[in-house]
């Protein structure tokens, strides 16, 4: 009689264990997105990747929105970096756990469109007769595919040239005239390279290479940068790309270019500690750099080769996507929240507190922006650079499903330059690897 008892105990234990597993699931239930909260408000879950000081600004904006009206509660949830957030989104997309509004980085655009888990915001723009004429076209165009506005731009930035004015003075250069061409850049870098200080640096990050190519009007992939159809071939190894790689290679050999790795903090620390006198950074980082550097900081447009026409910059950053397959009331509430975020007042606060662009150009007329620009004239340069950008396929930016992978290949090619690789060969190799990735992605369709 002893054995059945043990068996029974074991069975009970197993059942208990399974029950415990279920229990966990149940406790997780209230976290899920529900159409309506207890007080009858519609809940909008907003996933974002803004950390540190940016998260505080987002939380403030959300809190203001929740206070302003009585029908909608927005819940902002930080989900890690852009990559982490999009991975999490992937696992829950199309289920009840999916967020209503999702922030996705610019290179995830094609990927989100192809995912089929999103509702283009165009639908709400049309239904609402929403006036988009105040939007900065150079920003919204990126997220506009075949005339359909897929997502709402939120935090947008572009690269800018940042330089140390004190070092310029010491080297006898004009502090108000940053280099605009590769030749000027080389000359300036040479004059600035003294002892411990290097003239110029670019972060080993694919985005900067894309931007330097686009600034000359060059494309990244075929099919009109992937906007006329699915891109099948990388073209960043063309003339424009070679110019960029040749410049880095030449300057590195000349010892006027400093390799600062892949880490944003590292390159900023190098600039602030006087290791480098000029570098490329995101416009969203300008305010912090100006504030924290122990010297005068200037900003300038992206340089291009002498013979090239300056086309402008491609918008970077992230946009907000609306989930599909959820209740209409929720989508409507999410749309209200998006409209609030793009209002001039909110955009002005956003621009001033973060350095990201205002997507609503009216924001620049707000008083807080004007007074901020007086304090930080460097910020205005970034906005002007975007305003001066010519609208073209190049500056609209590429649309490919395998952007992260393409960037890794470009970074690898960039790193091989410091080992003395031939610029053209390095680029060709990266282009070939990108082609393979594109082919694989196109097969899945």
């Amino acid at each position, binding site marked *: 009689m002893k054995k059945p008892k043990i068996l029974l105990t074991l069975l009970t234990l197993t059942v208990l264990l399974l029950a415990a597993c279920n229990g966990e699931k149940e406790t997780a239930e209230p976290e899920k997105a529900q159409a309506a909260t207890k007080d009858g408000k519609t809940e909008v879950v907003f996933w974002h990747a803004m950390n540190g000081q940016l998260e505080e600004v987002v939380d403030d904006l959300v809190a203001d929105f929740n206070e302003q009206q009585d029908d909608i509660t927005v819940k902002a949830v930080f989900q890690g970096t852009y990559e982490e957030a999009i991975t999490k989104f992937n696992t829950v997309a199309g289920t009840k756990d999916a967020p209503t509004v999702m922030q996705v980085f610019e290179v995830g655009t094609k990927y989100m469109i192809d995912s089929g888990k999103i509702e283009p915001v165009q639908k709400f723009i049309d239904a609402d007769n929403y006036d988009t004429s105040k939007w900065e076209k150079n920003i919204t165009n990126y997220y506009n595919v075949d005339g359909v506005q897929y997502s709402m731009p939120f935090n947008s930035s572009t690269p800018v040239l940042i330089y140390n004015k004190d070092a310029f003075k010491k080297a006898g250069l004009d502090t108000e005239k940053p280099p605009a061409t590769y030749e000027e850049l080389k000359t300036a870098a040479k004059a600035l390279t003294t002892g411990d200080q290097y003239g110029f640096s670019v972060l080993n990050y694919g985005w900067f290479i894309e931007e330097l190519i686009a600034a000359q009007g060059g494309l990244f992939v075929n099919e009109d940068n992937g906007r006329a159809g699915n891109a099948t071939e990388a073209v960043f190894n063309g003339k424009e790309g070679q110019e960029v790689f040749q410049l880095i290679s030449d300057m590195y050999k000349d010892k006027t270019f400093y390799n600062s790795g892949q880490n944003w903090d590292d390159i900023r*620390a190098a600039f602030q500690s006087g290791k480098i006198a000029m570098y490329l950074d995101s416009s969203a980082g300008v305010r912090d750099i100006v504030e924290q550097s122990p010297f005068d900081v200037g900003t300038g447009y992206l340089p291009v080769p002498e013979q090239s026409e300056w086309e402008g910059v491609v918008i970077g950053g992230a946009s907000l996507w609306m989930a599909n397959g959820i209740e209409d009331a929720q989508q409507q509430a999410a749309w209200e929240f998006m409209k609030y975020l793009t209002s001039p007042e909110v955009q002005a606060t956003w621009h001033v507190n973060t350095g990201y662009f205002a997507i609503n150009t009216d924001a620049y007329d707000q008083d807080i922006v004007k007074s901020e620009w007086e304090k930080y004239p460097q910020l205005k340069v970034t906005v002007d650079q975007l305003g001066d950008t010519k609208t073209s396929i190049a500056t609209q930016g590429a649309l490919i499903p395998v952007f992260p992978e393409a960037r890794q290949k470009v970074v690898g090619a960039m790193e091989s330059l410091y080992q003395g690789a031939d610029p053209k060969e390095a680029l060709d190799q990266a282009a070939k690897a990108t082609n393979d990735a594109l082919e694989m992605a196109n097969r899945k369709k």
Partner: protein
Amino acid sequence: MIAVKDRLRAEPKSRWRFPVTLEGMLYLLPSIVLFAVFLFYPMFKTIYLSLFLTDAQGNAQIFVGLEHYSQLLSSPSFRASLKATVLFVLYTVPAGVILALGLALLANQKLKGIGFFRTLFSSTMGMSVAASSVIWLFIYNPAIGIANTIMTTLGLQEMQWLLNPDTALISVAIPTIWMNTGFSFLILLGGLHNIDASLYESGKIAGVSDFYSLRKITLPLLSPTLLFIVTVSLINSFQTFGQIDILTKGGPMESTNVIVYSIFKDAFVNFNIGSASAQAVLLFAFILIVTILQFKWSEKKVHYQ
């Protein structure tokens, strides 16, 4: 076991009885369920997915057979990953174990205040990988890090530790050794405590040198502990992720792109779940072979009391 056998013999065949295997299975049920859910299912799913192209959510879409495998085996990038992984293991395991053994031998002396040193030597055990990696990130920072400050004070050239493909892997290996030493040290010290002191006394009476008693008494009796530490370090080393992610992200030029990191990147950055699964299967086969070899070898060398 004997009781079960007795019952088998005692009970007449005609009578129905609870099948013994089934009964045994029932005892194992809790662990079988747990293993099945958390180990076997994911394992078979990984093998299954490695034969497919998947969508971003990891659903199998197009059957491609062994294409992922053939592509991986012919890809220079995967071969670089293999090489980085093997090198990384070679850099970290022997150095880490020898360092920990040396510290354990030192800390095994009966001296005043030795407790302080024992705490000190094992302190890295309490550090998280993320926190220590960030500390080392600052140490290695080419512009403001202390590593270069030391180099210049010594009159040497400044180095780009993590940015040079030739030094990056070693620069990641050093923090790894530092992090793992605490744990190895503690286990080895425990092993040393277990060695019977009378053996050393006999050795002293016989007049053998310290080195001789280390070789003939300490190491043989410590060998089971050493085997454990080597195995654990080896597996840890194969699975290194945190420090790579924080220090180098697999770069520069894939010189630190060990297989586990490459799997992560393929699956969660590039969303090629199929290819990532194939890499995981290959890594599994690889570790399996190494572990079998290790146990084959250790059967001869390890001395169990």
